[in-house]
């Protein structure tokens, strides 16, 4: 029988997020707001700033790496 491999075997388990006690809303302790990769991209697109963001970031990476050379 093969053992199930851990997803990230190289990563040591350090600590879990600290405990906190959020107030219950409609019977759910809502503490974490999770986001999928697709939704993250989409939400930034929806700000209308995607073009400018990509442009300045590309330029910054280029600048930083040129200085580095």
């Amino acid at each position, binding site marked *: 029988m093969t053992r199930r491999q851990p997803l990230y075997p190289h990563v040591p388990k350090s600590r879990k997020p600290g405990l906190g006690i959020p107030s219950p809303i409609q019977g759910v302790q*809502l503490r974490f707001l999770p986001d999928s*990769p697709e939704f993250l991209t989409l939400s930034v697109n929806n700000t209308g700033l995607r073009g400018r963001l990509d442009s300045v970031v590309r330029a910054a990476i280029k600048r930083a790496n040129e200085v580095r050379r």
Partner: protein
Amino acid sequence: MRAIPEAQAKPRTITMEDFEEIWKPRGWRLIIIGPTSSWRQEWGEWEAIRDIVQNALDEAEAYQYGYDSEGFWIADKGKGVAVSDFLLGPPKLKPDYARGKFGEGMKIAALALLRKGYPVHVETIDREFWIIFLEQQVNGKVETLAALWRPNGSRTGTKFHIIGYTGPSFDYYFAVNLPRRLILAEVPSPINVPTIRYNQLIRAEGMASSPAGGVIYTRDIYLQDIKSTFSYNLWGLELSPDRHGPKSEADMWLDMGRLWSGVSNVYLLEEFLPMVLEPPVVQSGESRYIRMDSWDMGSEPGSKKRYADLIKDHAQIWQAAWNKIVGIDAVIRTTSRWDGMVKHLGYRSVTLQHGVTDALATAIMTDLVLIRESQARLRDSEIVPDPMLTRTALIHLNLARKIALKFRVERVQAAVIPPASERARTAGLYDHVREEILIHLETLESATKTLDTIIHELGHHRAYKASGDIQMAEDLMPLHSEKMTEVAAYVIGSTAANEFDENFKGAVW
């Protein structure tokens, strides 16, 4: 002894003189039952036959019927009828489990038939009766219900003969006459004395259909039509004294709920669900009224198991029907408050009729359970210490930390974050309790994905700090969009102003 005139051979109305001259000499005795011929004017042939059959079923669980040269007959193989059974007195209440309640239907049935012009002959164990009107002179003529009887009769059971009746037998109004193939499911009713009675789900076809679609029988006897593709035979409710309806409408729909709680055929559940969605996909009588409240349905008396738990026992079957009819990505909506979060987790909320929501929620996932499970999974996120990160990931993480510090968020961590649901991976999350942002290891391998994440998560943080309400900070909320746009604008401005150039060294697009 006077000869029996032709008109008296099958008597309907006689006088005391007739009795004394014709009947008494032949061994007949007379009992006065009581009511006059105008009693229960609303009763006709159906009500009369209904109550005769009801008595037969209470006696023997089955009845026979047919037509002969004399008219129509109804028979059972019960213990027979006593003379005293024909006397009207204080109601002799039948037990709760019986079909009838007051035990007077047989007399009123005979009265109604006589009034309609049909002589009524009853042959029972060791005696026979003619039910008659006794005509008496009391300031005019009064017809009083009475019976002639004498020892004779059969050895078993009772046979009612409705002389001259050639009308309908109403056999389709009694569930015991339905062909077995129409019975789709049987679930124990709350009645188990003297024997277990089963609520029956019936296909609304042929004998079990009505112009509305289906029929509701109560304890084997027609009660009312129902707009449905199903008919029902229900035992766990009481009828009003006139038998024209249930004593409580709610009890009838609750008993229907008990029946559906025990149905375990996936094809039937696939027919049930479209009726109880809100709005209903199939508009039916069940849609608005059926009730499956756990407490009110109570327990099945044999196993003592709660009816609602029967749904839980068949959860996989309910889920299969749900997945096919409503969708694999659908959860039960308990409140619209969670619609955004549910959508965010890759699902959609679907409303059910109020009366079935709680019960079906024991088998099918609700928005609350989805979110609770998601929160529990996310609690298992594992923070990865900086020394364990790849060089690129650490560069991107430090860039994110620098941006976050501008918004006074001091905790930005790399993490292995579980999927938020079975339908949604997690690239980043905001923990409003610790004011901490976690970014998934995979996300950190790309500068642009890291920036998307930190901008989005800081949007959550800023919205939460601005409103003090985590609900206002959720995805798809206007305040979150507004704050996220502000953060994005800040990142663009600062990056363009070379503010983060040190942090972009070694960054990968």
